[in-house]
């Protein structure tokens, strides 16, 4: 008897397939359309940045992609598995086995050591019940914290904390890595450090979706999806994204001005 043998998705199945996704919140008597018919495909191995002003629905979309919330309408398939009819327990299992979360505020357990924090998802996993410690160690080494395993969050810098969180997200080998403003609480040096880690992971074939409002961070992604009023406003490779190009130009201009000022001084 095949034991829990799920139909493994074929390599060309997209990691994320979203069709007509809607989310309506009731705020008192008012109904707020946070998502209003979003279509989105993210292939395996892609590195996508989701951008948008606050209230554009990017956080809501993130929650949907992360199976933390259920859409009011529409379809969402994660690695070929439709999630529409899943109950809370099944969604928890999907989150556990297929999704790695990275939060702006890290969300580490303050009293647990780095390795204990990384082991957290495996506590709830059937698949990864054995060898949890070894897996956690290798995940921590992967993010460059091989020498900080027994440190508690308050003994670590902001960048190190986010690395622990990334190790935790990676430890169950998720189909997608979802990062919600992962650099929002970090200084620019640390931001670069963390974003390099993302590009490295991407180079190894990890599918990454990152929500950010920083053009600089989005610049590292292959593709930028912009949301406005709950709809996809633009979607294309980073090199073709008009707003991003404008940003790069303004940055180049500023750099040039600074260089000019430096020369004239």
């Amino acid at each position: 008897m095949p034991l829990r043998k799920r139909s493994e998705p074929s390599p060309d199945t997209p990691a994320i397939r979203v069709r007509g996704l809607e989310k309506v919140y009731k705020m008192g008597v008012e109904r707020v359309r946070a998502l209003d018919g979003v279509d989105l495909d993210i292939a395996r191995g892609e590195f996508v940045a989701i951008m948008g002003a606050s209230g554009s629905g990017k956080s809501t979309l993130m929650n949907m992609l992360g199976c933390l919330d259920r859409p009011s309408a529409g379809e969402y398939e994660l690695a070929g598995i439709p999630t529409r009819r899943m109950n809370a327990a099944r969604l928890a299992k999907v989150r556990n086995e297929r999704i790695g979360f990275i939060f702006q505020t890290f969300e580490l357990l303050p009293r647990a050591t780095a390795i204990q924090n990384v082991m957290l998802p495996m506590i709830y996993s059937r698949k990864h019940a054995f060898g949890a410690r070894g897996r956690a160690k290798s995940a921590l080494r992967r993010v460059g914290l091989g020498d900080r395993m027994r440190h508690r969050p308050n003994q670590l810098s902001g960048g190190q904390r986010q690395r622990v969180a990334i190790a935790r997200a990676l430890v169950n080998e998720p189909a997608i890595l979802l990062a919600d403003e992962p650099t929002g609480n970090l200084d620019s040096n640390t931001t670069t450090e963390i974003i390099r880690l993302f590009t490295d992971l991407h180079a190894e074939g990890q599918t990454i979706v990152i929500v950010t409002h920083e053009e600089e961070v989005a610049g590292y992604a292959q593709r930028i999806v912009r949301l406005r009023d709950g709809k996809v406003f633009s979607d294309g490779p980073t090199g073709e994204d008009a707003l991003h190009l404008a940003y790069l130009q303004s940055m180049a201009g500023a750099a040039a001005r600074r260089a000019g000022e430096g020369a004239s001084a």
Partner: protein
Amino acid sequence: MIVVRLLMQTVVLALGQIWANKVRSMLTTLGIVIGVAAVVATVAAIEGLRGFVLAEFETFGATKVFIAGNVPQSKRGVMRWRDAALKIEELDAIERHAPSVTAITPHWFAASRVEYGQNAIESARVVGIRPQWHDIENRQVREGRPFNVLDEEQRRYALLINARAIEELNLPINPVGEYVLLAGRRFMIIGVVETLEISAMFGGGESRAEFFVPFSTAMILNPNAVISYALASMRSPQAAEDTRTEVDFVLRSMRGLDPEEDATFNVEIPQEYVDRFKALSAGLVAGAAGIVGISLLVGGIGIMNIMLVSVSERTREIGLRKAVGARPAVILVQFLTEAVVLCLMGGAVGIAIGQAIIVALKQIPNAPLEHASMPMWAVALAVGFCAVTGVVFGVFPAIKAARLDPIVALRHD
């Protein structure tokens, strides 16, 4: 396997949480600690008292029945005590017609002079009994033989004595076959019965010299003497009620008493006192259990309160755990386990304190509490109660935690 692992992790987690909030946890469980300690000590004290009293009653034996003539209040002055005394025919009737009575013997008492050589006891306790006495009274015949039917029928001058009598009369170690003078007649010692230790509670005190003679022989010594009381045995300790009814019926019909009339006899069954005492102590234990129930209720509310605090304090943590894949049921079990562990720790501390109280109680001089000890069932009950309290009062906060929306929980601050 996965369940055991998860449960172990949950318990470790719960212990960690409790350790992290030591003072809070301690204060929270105080209600349960005090409740359990109080009930454990109370139950142990009651059990100790019970053990003491039952041990006292045990010296009687569980199947003994005492029957004696009695002049009831309504007949004082009209009836003489001598007339109320039991007759040997009445005893025979009881033996024949009361099926619950397996054996019966009269007790006839006299205080007579007993001599052996140079030694004499002025007023020795002489008891006239039938051979059935040996079946009722569990007193071993150490030397020689017991009374038999021939001794009774042939009115032999046979004598059973106890060790104390050997001492007092300076008889040989094995006095069987020796002759002593009792009330001026020669009696041959046919056996030695063991000395009975009657507890101080029933006026036995130290043992004294005893001389047993066949009842029929006793009637020769003093034809006018009356039967002080009859000692009978019933077929089982549970037959007390039947025995009472049957003896009552036989004696009433022989004495021509109406059913409403006051009886001119008494039937005393020590086992009935034992039963009544057992019921009483069971009632006391139940009362103590009720008190512990109330204190556990109060303690449980404290636990619920602290668990609610814990859930709202750790909302973000719950959100995170859910985000990384904890199912609602797992969160529920986690918080439930924490409540139960908290209660069980309180229970354990309570049992320890209770045990200390028991040790202290035993030090009280002259209190009949040497037998005080915590019965295992009380420990099991206390632990069970605590676990149930944990579940009952932990379930509401746990459900609250399990139902938290992960997004809302993660945004909580």
